[in-house]
């Protein structure tokens, strides 16, 4: 089959797509049950680090794709932060053309295999699916995205003709990888500087293997490398190389995506006891440094009773990692109720299947230590939900005198991060917001004309898809600026 044009594979009006729409009645489509993700058994998976979700097989994926009604005004796309052409990739799956589904995805998303695994679909695309209005489960868009991304052939990235311009990228997380991919495709020479010894940022040090295998991330990095992107580890921009150094190296533009650095603590008594640590520390030890695996030198505390403070994805990753490190009792301590938890529904479900306890409406007020300075118990204030606050969530209020004490030997604090101050502190003239994030305009350009920024250093703590979207947006804007300058010179 000769390769179809992008227009043919993505347009709703292509003949194959019309045929596909007419091939089944809506009632037949809606009668199909939503696919079940193939997943490892909970009892087995907590003994290892293998990916919990095994993915859909081809038959399941094509069947799930046939559920999609191919709406003329697809709500799902409005729920996607980067407006992926969702019906187009799904219909390509339905007709069995997985490679074309992959092409549609990659036209908008640099990291579909990653986003298919870590996006909070129930709050984005799937939350706008027409099926919900019918009281049915939405089309499994995230699982289909993952299926297409995992199984589509990667076209050999045709090297774009070099345009002679050189761009520097600070950090190598999702925003940077996405930015690098876009700029590479436009013919720029891209040089990425990463402070750690691994490329991938939060995708490597933060998100555990059982949720996002490193091999999935490495495939994306390798593709960029083959396309000519240069990656340098162990370089801290602002320290190893100063802003002036970068200027002297004749970079035409700089994209800063250095991420959210500093872990937040709650500033309560006992928080500096041994055994109390940030989720960043715990996850970095295990994910990046291999702690707990034979032969790796980095130590990690293997608690018997572990409490993780917080209700986000990082909290779920931490508590489930603690189980895999041998915890006999692992619990989430969260000050609001489960309905307010920011974590993806799937992570909460998986955590519960694995035996995690949920102490919702509890908030730590103090940690108690033994004579060796190790945490041995936590005191929790019981809470109730009061009136909704500014962002519409009901505010948790302490219940007078309702304090419980629970023995623990490890506490992982996962209550958010603050932007990494390293870059803002080391580049003069870079405007910073009150929260410490970089100030950018609607095109993600900072107060310095050469510097664009995106991801958590701008947002303070968001999602992979938003960071990735920033990378793409900043690349487009920087390209407009730089190509405009070129035409001015002619």
């Amino acid at each position, binding site marked *: 089959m000769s390769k179809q044009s992008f227009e043919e594979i993505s347009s709703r009006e292509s003949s194959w797509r019309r045929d596909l729409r007419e091939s089944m009645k809506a009632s037949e489509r809606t009668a199909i049950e939503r696919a079940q993700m193939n997943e490892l058994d909970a009892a087995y998976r907590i003994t290892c680090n293998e990916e919990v979700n095994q993915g859909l097989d081809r038959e399941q994926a094509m069947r799930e794709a046939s559920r999609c009604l191919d709406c003329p005004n697809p709500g799902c796309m409005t729920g996607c932060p980067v407006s992926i052409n969702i019906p187009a990739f799904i219909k390509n799956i339905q007709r069995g053309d997985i490679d074309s589904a992959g092409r549609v995805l990659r036209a908008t998303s640099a990291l579909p295999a990653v986003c298919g695994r870590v996006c909070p679909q129930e709050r984005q695309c799937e939350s706008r699916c027409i099926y919900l209005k019918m009281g049915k489960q939405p089309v499994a868009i995230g699982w289909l995205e993952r299926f297409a991304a995992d199984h589509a052939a990667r076209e050999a990235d045709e090297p774009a003709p070099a345009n002679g311009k050189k761009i520097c990228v600070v950090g190598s997380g999702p925003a940077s990888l996405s930015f690098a991919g876009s700029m590479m495709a436009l013919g720029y020479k891209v040089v990425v500087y990463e402070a750690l010894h691994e490329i991938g940022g939060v995708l490597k040090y933060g998100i555990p293997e059982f949720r996002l295998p490193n091999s999935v991330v490495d495939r994306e990095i390798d593709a960029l490398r083959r396309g000519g992107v240069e990656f340098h580890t162990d370089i801290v921009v602002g320290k190893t190389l100063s802003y002036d150094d970068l200027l002297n190296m004749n970079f035409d533009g700089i994209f800063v995506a250095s991420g959210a650095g500093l872990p937040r603590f709650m500033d309560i008594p006992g928080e500096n006891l041994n055994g109390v640590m940030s989720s*960043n520390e715990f996850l970095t030890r295990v994910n990046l440094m291999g702690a707990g695996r034979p032969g790796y030198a980095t130590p990690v505390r293997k608690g018997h009773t572990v409490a993780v403070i917080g209700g986000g994805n990082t909290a779920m990753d931490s508590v489930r990692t603690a189980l895999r490190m041998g915890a006999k009792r692992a619990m989430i301590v969260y000050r609001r109720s489960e309905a307010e938890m920011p974590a993806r529904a799937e992570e909460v479900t998986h955590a519960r299947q694995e035996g995690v306890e949920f102490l919702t409406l509890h908030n730590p007020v103090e940690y108690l230590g033994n004579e060796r300075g190790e945490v041995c118990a936590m005191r929790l204030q019981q809470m109730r939900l009061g009136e909704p606050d500014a962002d519409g969530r009901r505010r948790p209020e302490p219940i007078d005198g309702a304090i419980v004490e629970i023995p623990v030997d490890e506490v992982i604090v996962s209550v958010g991060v603050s932007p*990494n101050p390293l870059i803002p502190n080391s580049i003069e003239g870079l405007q910073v917001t009150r929260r410490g994030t970089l100030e950018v305009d609607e095109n993600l350009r900072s107060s310095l004309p050469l510097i664009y920024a995106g991801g958590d250093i701008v947002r303070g703590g968001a999602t992979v898809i938003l960071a990735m979207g920033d990378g793409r947006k900043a690349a487009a804007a920087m390209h407009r600026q730089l190509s405009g300058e070129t035409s001015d010179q002619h």
Partner: protein
Amino acid sequence: MFSPKVAKLVVEAPLIARSRRPGHFVIVRLGEKGERIPLTIADADVAAGTITLVIQAVGESTAQFIGLEPGDAFTDVVGPLGHATHIERFGTVVCSGGGVGVAPLLPIIKAMKEAGNRVISVLAARNKDLIILEDEVRRHSDEVIIMTDDGSAGRKGLVTNGIEEVIQREKVDQVVTIGPAIMMKFVSLLTKKYDIPTICSLNTIMVDGTGMCGACRVSVGGKTRFVCVDGPEFDAHQVDFDQMLMRLKAYDGATKK
């Protein structure tokens, strides 16, 4: 080798050699399964593109480091990290170093001297064999006092005895102390008594070294600070050394397991 447990390594790292200042540290890793270890930079040669590290074997990784041969390489060296030492003309500065703490102290001694200070260096160790870099320190100091626990070099006594002797003899404007946490604690207690501003350089447990993990947190003036990005130098009188000593033991059990 300075002694069976202490070695000097000269590491090729041209970018770091060029940008480092006294007080900065690096993180090194040896082998793909190695851990990230923070080490304060003792010296650098910009022309040769090298930095000098002085390493004491205290655990498995540092024991491997001191066994490295010329021509061997670290898997990773990243830096310079942390804030550089604040150098100015204070007047008389006492620079006190204990054990391998003398190595990162040396560039500060040099810089303090170059800034026009009268520099009195007080070096301390358990015995004569553990006194390092004495000649280099002498070259850049107006006076050097050596203290050993057993009296095998210099005078018998603790670093605090040497410092107190200077304080009682003349006006001291600034003290710098680098060494084991317990030593810095007692230096800090001493200079607090005399109300002499004192900076210390803390070497805590770290993982990333760039402000990401918080393993290095210490309590300074009642507030939690991160040694890697807020330090490594702090006002010694504000540091909760007892908490720091406790936190240094965080993985004692884990590494033995």
